[in-house]
């Protein structure tokens, strides 16, 4: 990582861009369906969090970044964005399955993965905490003479209630950092609807209070997402300070794979907000971008094959072995006391 030729050169035409985004969305959906199936058959221990319904928003952000140059700090529903930014599909499979060969080596799991040395920090669970970390990475790049690196950080409607969100966005504005904060307003934080989360008309109204630019977009509409993030990332990159992008959409699944999301009202699911961005993008490809059903079916089966291969590889991987594990929390190994590495 950054790997895929796909991710490297942003395609010239809107149509090519749309198609490329669609492929990442499709791959993410296919992978996550598989991960959910593995969870339900007891093959994955711990939590499983899906980005169903948020793929267009997430992929569009990442596709407007430059892997190897920019920073992308995904959260729990950013499988599509992660891959579009260059995270290998194998990282996902290995981390969920606890492979010793994954980036987290079984020490951390599921969505708590990243490759910070490649511009993708590994999230901690505490919501909001990654935003200021991205600020710091941007500050580092400024110090190191890379002032046009953009840093994107993802968060949900619920995460905007954290003090960490506020402190980081305000600090980014004061430091005038090229930060793009993508708020996926999927109408729920776990089971909590937005009226118990905030009382403003629209979360984008927060932008003014920080002195940053705000953008709103229909998160089910891939083309709109691509455009909005193109603008926002460009503004950040060209010295206009932090950008706050709010995408309105619906989480098309439970909070985690353990949750059926029964509390999501039917009328919300039936509303335009409840449409599936992947399905809409597929229809749009057929209607406006010269795609044929055969071609799209081929993409489907290609995605299925990639997923199957990745999962099969990860399942053959060794699990971490506690007796071989270095139980040392410090990089300065000579400082670790032997007492600490004794068995409990």
């Amino acid at each position, binding site marked *: 990582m950054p790997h895929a030729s796909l991710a490297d050169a942003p395609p010239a035409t809107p149509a090519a861009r749309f198609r490329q985004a669609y492929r990442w969305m499709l791959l993410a959906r296919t992978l996550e369906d598989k991960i959910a199936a593995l969870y339900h058959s007891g093959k994955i221990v711990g939590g499983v969090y899906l980005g169903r319904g948020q793929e267009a928003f997430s992929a569009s952000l990442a596709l407007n970044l430059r892997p190897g140059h920019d920073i992308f700090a995904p959260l729990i529903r950013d499988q599509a964005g992660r891959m579009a930014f260059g995270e290998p599909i194998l990282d996902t499979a290995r981390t969920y399955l606890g492979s010793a060969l994954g980036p987290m080596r079984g020490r951390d799991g599921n969505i708590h993965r990243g490759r910070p040395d490649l511009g993708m920090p590994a999230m901690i669970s505490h919501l909001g905490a990654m935003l200021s970390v991205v600020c710091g990475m941007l500050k580092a790049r400024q110090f190191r003479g890379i002032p046009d690196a953009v840093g994107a950080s993802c968060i949900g409607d619920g995460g905007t209630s954290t003090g960490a969100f506020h402190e980081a966005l305000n600090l980014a504005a004061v430091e005038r950092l090229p930060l793009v904060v993508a708020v996926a307003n999927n109408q729920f934080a776990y089971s909590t609807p937005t009226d*118990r989360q905030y009382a403003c008309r629209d979360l984008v109204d927060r932008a003014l209070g920080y002195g940053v630019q705000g953008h709103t977009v229909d998160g089910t509409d891939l083309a709109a997402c691509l455009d909005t993030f193109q603008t926002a990332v460009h503004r950040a990159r060209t010295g206009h300070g932090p950008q706050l992008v709010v995408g309105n959409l619906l989480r098309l699944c439970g909070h985690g794979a353990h949750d059926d999301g029964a509390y999501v009202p039917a009328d919300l699911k039936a509303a335009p907000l409840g449409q599936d961005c992947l399905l809409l993008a597929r229809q749009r490809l057929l209607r406006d971008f010269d795609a044929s059903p055969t071609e799209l079916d081929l993409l489907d089966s290609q995605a299925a094959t990639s997923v199957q291969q990745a999962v099969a590889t990860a399942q053959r991987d060794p699990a971490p072995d506690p007796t071989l594990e270095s139980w040392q929390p410090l990089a300065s190994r000579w400082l670790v006391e032997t007492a600490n590495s004794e068995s409990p």
Partner: protein
Amino acid sequence: MSITYLEAIREAQRRALQENPEVFIYGQDIAHFGGAFKATKHLARDFPGRVLDSPISEDAMMGLAIGAAIDGMRPIVEMQFADFSSIAFNQIINQAATHFWRTGVPCPLVVRLPSGGTAGSGPFHSQSMEALYAHYPGLVVLTPATVGDAYWMLLEAIKLDDPVIFCEHKFLYYHLKADELPPESLPIGKARIVRHGKHASVVTYSAMLHESLRAADDLAKIGYEIEVVDLRSIKPLDTDTILASVARTGRLLVVGEAFPFGGVSAEVVARVTAEGFHLLDAPPQRLNARDTPIPYHPNLWAAHRPTASSIATALRGLLGF
């Protein structure tokens, strides 16, 4: 009828809501949804307006509880996981804990912390934070290990005029069942001798009680009688009961699931050696989790925290001294 540890917590809350109009519950996803672990299932329905979903704002949730407490209410705050109480840390240690001593006005509230490890939960959904809260003056810190204690200690905690950190163990939520609730329990501040023995004392609490009891079973097979003390209450700590046990056995192993540096197990050892040095026939030992973040993978996790088997090994070492 049988009742789980989790149900005991729910029933204690139900009873408190019933008996005392000053009680209300505040936390994420606790109303209609009944909480991430269902510890408040149906309570919002049965007590309208008194079980409230909060925004994801642990600092403000805690501040709200403190304000309500000093203004005459008895709030219960549910943290979704103990680990997220790090965001409420300042309000807990600096506002709640200092309030009575500074102003003379009590701050009666309970913070429920779903604590401890379960397989696959990883570094941020597994922590045991009792040592942090016990270090700061002004807090009562409780760690029930049985269904009965979960019920009675929570009820008593709600009645206390002080801020209480109530560490519930997530592993026990569903795994631990009792046939029925006991009619009463020991008061807060008293430890319980759960198993009598004469060769060594294991002092422990929360989920580690059950690992320790299994280790004691193991050692019974080779002829050792291990006394097991459940602290129940971390602060205040029942030094007398611990010392009495050490007086009987002469050997001490303190077992905790938290990180090894400082904390509860060190405190127990330091008290016993200061006040009961002459009672000890062998160096007192501690067994805690390893000094790394709590790993995600079940293999690593099992090697990170104490288990019946590693406790038994430590006991054999202690007995062979």
